[in-house]
């Protein structure tokens, strides 16, 4: 290593060579390489975190580029993980990058996070956020939490030295349709970079012991008024006693989900004309969609049931396979007899296989 690579931060008296050495020895897992994960991974890699685990299984889409600034136009259609690894290697050849080409799930969460000292939640849905929280409680790892809504962000560190967890703040996991996601609600490009950068800062503080870790305090950031507020909250000891993960985190996990993998669905598409209900917004649908698919946005599905033929199998589709699960749950309550299918990974995975073939 060039002697002076990190000199601008080792010069800081509170940080010093000792801080740099701690970063070098640290093993940090970043879950998600989207709007939040990119600033987290880029800055931690630049600052010299020794081992960075990266979990992502999504594909780069054109509408990601306004906020996911590591990716270029020529990367559209490629795996986020592959592109990110290539760019992070070029940025810092000394760090060890550990890729996990998967979505974090009940079956792999504990095994993956156990390999790291601390975990960064850079995901975009409640199911994964609650799964990560519970997994971090079980594996006793601090969790650096960041989340967005419109022009606002939330930031805190959960499960630090027996401090409070996500369930101490928000005891019940919301259903995804209760609160609109960035896909439906929109997000200004710069917002995730602000919150993600704050997450990276919390990681540095956790690893080096510099400053005060944001534990037991929820930072609320409002970009429109440039105001921040810190809300104190306490641990509820029962939330630290989680012994095992739920069977499923998808919208409470009471339904068994009938799902079809993207490869199988493409094979089916070549043979038959399945009924495809695309539950994305009208504008997403206009941008691109499968031939002969019917667009019923998730928010309007209960008013448009007459557009669906429940005597035939219903294949539910969205961008990444999450909103289609919400649609699946709504429809399965209304029509328990209907044959419903969730297309796993949504259009992102389908496009990947179309590109590959």
């Amino acid at each position: 290593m060039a002697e002076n690579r990190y000199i601008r931060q080792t010069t800081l008296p509170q940080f010093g060579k000792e801080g740099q050495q701690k970063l070098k020895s640290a093993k940090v897992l970043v879950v998600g390489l989207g709007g939040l994960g990119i600033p987290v991974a880029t800055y931690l890699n630049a600052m010299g975190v020794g081992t960075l685990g990266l979990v992502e299984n999504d594909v780069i889409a054109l509408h990601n580029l306004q906020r996911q600034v590591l990716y270029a136009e020529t990367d559209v259609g490629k795996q986020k993980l592959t592109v990110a690894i290539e760019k992070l290697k070029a940025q810092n050849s000394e760090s060890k990058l550990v890729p996990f080409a998967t979505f974090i799930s009940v079956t792999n969460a504990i095994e993956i996070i156990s390999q790291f000292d601390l975990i960064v939640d850079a995901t975009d849905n409640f199911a994964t956020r609650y799964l990560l929280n519970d997994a971090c409680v079980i594996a006793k790892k601090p969790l650096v939490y960041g989340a967005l809504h419109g022009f606002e962000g939330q930031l805190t560190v959960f499960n630090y030295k027996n401090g409070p967890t996500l369930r101490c703040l928000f005891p019940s996991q919301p259903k995804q349709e209760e609160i609109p996601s960035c896909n439906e609600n929109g997000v200004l490009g710069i917002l995730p970079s602000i919150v993600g950068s704050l997450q990276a800062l919390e990681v540095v503080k956790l690893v080096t012991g510099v400053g005060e870790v944001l534990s037991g305090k929820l930072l609320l950031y409002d970009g429109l008024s440039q105001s921040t507020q810190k809300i104190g909250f306490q641990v509820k000891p029962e939330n630290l006693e989680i012994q095992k993960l739920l069977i499923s985190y998808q919208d409470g996990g009471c339904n068994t989900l009938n799902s079809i993998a993207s490869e199988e669905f493409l094979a089916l598409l070549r043979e038959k004309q399945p009924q495809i209900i695309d539950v994305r917004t009208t504008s997403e649908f206009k941008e691109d969609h499968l031939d002969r698919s019917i667009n019923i946005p998730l928010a309007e599905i209960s008013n448009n049931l007459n557009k669906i033929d429940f005597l035939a199998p219903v294949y539910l589709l969205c961008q990444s396979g999450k909103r289609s699960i919400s649609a699946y749950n709504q429809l399965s309550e209304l029509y328990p007899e209907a044959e419903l299918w969730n297309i796993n990974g949504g259009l992102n995975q389908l496009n990947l296989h179309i590109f590959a073939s």
Partner: protein
Amino acid sequence: MTILLFGVTKDIIGTPQLSIPTSTFTGKESPKTVGDLRSFLQNAYPELKKLSSLAIAVNNNYAEDTKPINSFDEIALIPPVSGG
């Protein structure tokens, strides 16, 4: 009583901040606890009932439903957000 709104509560209520007049003006009982305030707001804005978790902070601290409140308190409604 000033209520700051965050996340989807700002979208539901349609403003970043809400003032609840005290009983002197309205003649009605004003909410005495966090739980009273929660029901009061849920009645006024039924969309709030759909939220399975909604944290309420009093003077920048998370508060349980039993916590007493008065007209000088600053309240914040904090729903979880999921975007990334």
